[in-house]
């Protein structure tokens, strides 16, 4: 059965490879946005050298790293699942002899791997060339980075699934999708780096699941969080992952039993 899920992921990966030009255009967009934010940050840092332990170089790295993993963790316009619910095609997926969530999970993971390689890597490389970002040299940083972003991506998939599955109950759920994405982007530090937020807001944000999406992986990569602080934050996010996954599984169960599927 495990092989089946790997196969699903592989197919999703290969399907993505076909869209070379779309990926190139998307890459340009990612780089452009990171560039704009970089200029804003450089200009802002003219008045003070360090904020909350982040100098201008750190914040630039943070920004480029964010842009690099954005498409992995919070891809725009993921409504694939929602579409199948709207058209009724979801029935075929539900009746496949595999777990409904794991099926979608594998598909999304396949896509994630694609985006990490063909979108994230070139984005960060562009930043490295333009702003001489460099990479951290400690092995701990790399080890942690190897573990925590896949975790963020897993959280991201559970979240994606959640805001799509509402389509079982709300037919016109596009507003929900854009709202869910914006909130998540804001609270994971995609609009403004979380370390720059005022203290009280950071305290709230640190307790929410969104931090684990991107902020935590990026902070780990930068080596800004380590030791017991890291383990605390990571443990909390593991808790959130369990909660979100259970919620997803429960909602699938409810949908399976009570929802009348749309036709045609």
């Amino acid at each position: 059965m495990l092989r089946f899920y790997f196969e699903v992921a592989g197919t999703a990966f290969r399907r993505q490879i076909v869209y070379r030009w779309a990926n190139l255009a998307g890459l340009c967009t990612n780089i452009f946005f990171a560039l704009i934010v970089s200029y804003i940050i450089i200009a802002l840092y003219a008045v003070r050298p360090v904020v909350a332990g982040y100098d201008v170089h750190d914040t630039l790295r943070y920004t480029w790293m964010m842009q690099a993993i954005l498409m992995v963790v919070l891809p725009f316009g993921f409504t694939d699942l929602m579409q199948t619910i709207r058209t009724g095609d979801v029935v075929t997926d539900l009746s496949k002899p595999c777990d409904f969530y794991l099926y979608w999970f594998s598909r999304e993971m396949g896509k994630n791997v694609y985006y990490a390689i063909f979108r994230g890597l070139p984005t960060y490389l562009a930043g490295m060339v333009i702003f001489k970002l460099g990479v951290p040299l400690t092995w701990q940083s790399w080890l942690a980075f190897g573990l925590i972003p896949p975790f963020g991506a897993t959280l991201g998939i559970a979240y994606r699934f959640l805001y799509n599955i509402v389509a079982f109950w709300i037919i016109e759920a596009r507003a929900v999708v854009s709202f869910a994405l914006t909130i998540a982007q804001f609270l994971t530090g995609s609009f403004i780096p979380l370390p720059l937020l005022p203290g009280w807001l950071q305290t709230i944000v640190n307790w929410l699941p969104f931090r684990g999406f991107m902020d935590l992986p990026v902070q780990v990569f930068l080596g800004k969080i380590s030791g017991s602080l890291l383990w605390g934050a990571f443990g909390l996010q593991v808790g959130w992952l369990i909660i979100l996954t259970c919620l997803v599984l429960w909602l699938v169960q409810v949908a399976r039993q009570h929802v009348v599927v749309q036709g045609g």
Partner: protein
Amino acid sequence: MWRNLWEDLQLYQHLLVIQIKAQLQYKANLSLDIISYLGITGLEFVALLLYFVPFRTLLGWHVGEVAMLAAVMSLSFGLSELIGAGIDNFSVLINRGEFDRVLLRPVSAFVQVIGNDFRLRRLGRITQGMLAFALALHFLPALHWTFFKLLVLGIGIISGTIIFLSIVLLGATLCFWTVETTEITNILTYGSREMLSYPLTIYHQVLQRFFLFIVPVAFASYVPVCYVLERPLPFGLPAELALASPIVALLFALVSGWIWTFGVRHYQSTGS
């Protein structure tokens, strides 16, 4: 020509009225949509404000001044979204070969395209723009207002709307050849909106020139706002240039309109 224009406007109005009536049928849904759109655009603006908690100024620009820039951007972008959302969906029209049908009708193709997807929920961003503007005024109590400044700002916002509409039209024209919408258009619309919500001078020279002289979005936002705030313009440009924003916008619109007509003439339908 004027009669044609008049007929086009009547058709456009007719298309809008139908869609507004349809959307008003679902009042609860509509207000929810507008509010969530206001929330989304509001969060982006909140992020901009939050930058000014750790940093007092942005190269001499205070939070109120930057808020005014962002407000002008939101308003012109919001208006262009409200009016021209139909162009955004152009790739669908091309993809399904429905543009053939559009061309068969004895009325302007442009009006049919632009008028086919009018969404009242776009009022959300315009509301956000107005709130941002009110906040900017609150942060800038000492700002001296004259009738002329108001005029320049108003004309600037309208020029900005025209420029954004021309950009999406250019993006749509590209679909004649590429069939799919390319994300490159997003750089010019969403990207320039984000970029010019902050003072132009913080960016690289190339970017500054590009958005002043080639895709003149800055002409309709940065230049008028500088006039209102009595700030000098980059490259030693005279402040009076603020009055030229409608001319620049119309020129840009003419060029993109010409390219669009060229595209329509060379349109080859797609199968399936």
